[in-house]
């Protein structure tokens, strides 16, 4: 488990950073025409908030995450982390991609070590790496290669690879999508306790309404492409939450309605 021992005593953990997304629009050139993907999206995320993004497939959620990560500049609009404009990728904002995308030539442990290695902090980070591996329950697979892992295990390695950087903003693109329902429920609980302990800001894209409601402070519902914010629903329930909570069921009905699944649900 990642525990308080990770943090150096003289530098107490700062809570996650705020995110400001202002009037962001984005389009892709496709065969000479422009495919509008994001349409004037504005979103303000407070430090340490857990925000879930929901929306139809292909509406532009992953694209928004890429902009937040700094992998691409937006066509229009501004993005800022903790008040500073986002100009490029930075390990303070780490992404767990929809696909685990592990480096197949690196063992599990060396995959987790990519962040510290790239930032030149590998020596100091050995213990963190082991802790991150333990956190996702893969200590015993430290020396395995990605092709020897199941899909769910690979996704957990990707999660460990992100967490080891101690990010201010953790960006999660359907990180649990490939897990079986049991592991998924366990990982959801792990994610909540991790987030509560570490205090980072979390942005989670998911297709699973229940997951969004179980994890997040706020659920943002996007429209069809080009995506704009259709609804911004606060989830004011205390943690740890219970899946059977009737207030969750009510919220679930509301969100499904916004996604176009009315009535008989």
């Amino acid at each position, binding site marked *: 488990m990642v525990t308080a021992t990770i943090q150096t005593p003289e530098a107490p953990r700062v809570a996650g950073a705020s995110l400001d997304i202002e009037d962001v629009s984005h389009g892709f050139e496709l065969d000479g025409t422009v495919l509008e993907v994001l349409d004037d999206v504005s979103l303000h995320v407070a430090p340490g908030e857990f925000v879930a993004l929901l929306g139809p497939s292909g509406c532009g959620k992953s694209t928004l995450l890429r902009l937040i990560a700094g992998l691409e500049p937006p066509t229009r609009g501004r993005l800022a982390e903790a008040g500073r404009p986002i100009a490029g990728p930075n390990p303070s904002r780490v992404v767990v991609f929809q696909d685990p995308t592990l480096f197949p030539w690196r063992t599990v442990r060396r995959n987790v070590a990519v962040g510290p290695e*790239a930032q030149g902090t590998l020596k100091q980070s050995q213990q963190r790496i082991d802790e991150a591996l333990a956190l996702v329950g893969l200590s*015993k697979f430290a020396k395995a290669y990605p092709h020897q892992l199941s899909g769910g295990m690979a996704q957990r390695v990707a999660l460990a690879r992100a967490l080891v950087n101690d990010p201010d903003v953790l960006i999660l693109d359907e990180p649990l999508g490939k897990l079986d329902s049991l592991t998924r429920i366990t990982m959801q609980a792990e994610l909540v306790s991790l987030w509560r302990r570490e205090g980072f800001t979390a942005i989670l894209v998911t297709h699973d309404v229940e997951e969004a409601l179980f994890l997040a402070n706020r659920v943002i519902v996007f429209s069809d492409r080009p995506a704009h914010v259709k609804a911004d629903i606060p989830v004011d329930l205390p943690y740890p939450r219970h899946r059977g909570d009737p207030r969750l069921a009510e919220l679930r009905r509301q969100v499904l309605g916004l996604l176009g699944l009315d009535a008989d649900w």
Partner: protein
Amino acid sequence: MSDISSRSEGRPAAPRLTLADVVPAVPRPLVDVVGLVAGIAWFAVAASALALEDVGDWPRTPTFAAAAGLLAAGFIAVALASRWLGAPSRWLDRAGLWLIVLGLFFTLWQLASAKLGWVPLPFFPPPQALLEVYLDDFPRLGESILASVKLQLWGYSIGAVAGFLTGVSIGWSQRAAYWVHPVLRFIGPLPAGAWLPIAFFAFPSSWSAGIFLIALATGFPVTVLTWSGILSVNPAYYDVARTLGARSRFLVLKVAIPAALPHVFVGLFMALGTSFSVLVVAELLGVKAGLGFYMQAAQGWGDYANLYAALLVLALICSGAVSLLFAARDRFLSWQKDLVTW
């Protein structure tokens, strides 16, 4: 996670079932019959060498017969003691059929060439003539082997390194691609042999010309395959690395190159074949040392046994080089599944 812990130590080896795992073990026979037959076949080799008069002058006939007899005795001993021997008897078990066929082949060769004169001499000398070359002309042959290996090593290494660096730079940098790509397209497909006449007067020595030709033949496939390997790297790898704080140095050295390595090895294998053919051509036509030169000289003098002896050595060297490259690949690409075994 106890169910998976058994796979945890090191790199779990892929389970490779062989017939032996599936079929219940049969009690080992008292003697290895195939091994015995192999021994008999090799006694036939010795006997055929001794039994009849040679039709020519081959002083090494008794040596050859003795060597064959020794091998035969060895096979029979291992076959008889197979219950108590480990590695040697397993080897004999696996190689047995081949040894029988080889024994028959050598017997037939001996009879057809040295004893009955069925094949035209001196073009098809008997095996003892080859043995004679290895035993009595070893200094000259060894010198040629060294020269060839040295030339090949220099040429191939220079070509491989240059090709790799060129491939990485044009795969990574648009500007490098702008300048190098047209040259590569124009010159690359030209067979290295076409440079031969120019190379031999443009270079100060035939040796450096040979290195140039071999390097050229190696460089082109390595460049092209490295380049295509770099271009086909999944861009998501770069995204991941960049969000984790990687800069271009890390992206090139620790993402692009490892990801392209399987392609690079394909290029190295292709280059090995072409570079060997260039080596031999260069030595046959201009370089005054090496196995090609040795063969050329042997043919000129009508020493056909030397020709075959050198050819055999060349085959061993080429096959050894391929094995080495496979070993290197297995080491560097151990993370890949389903590697072809050599």
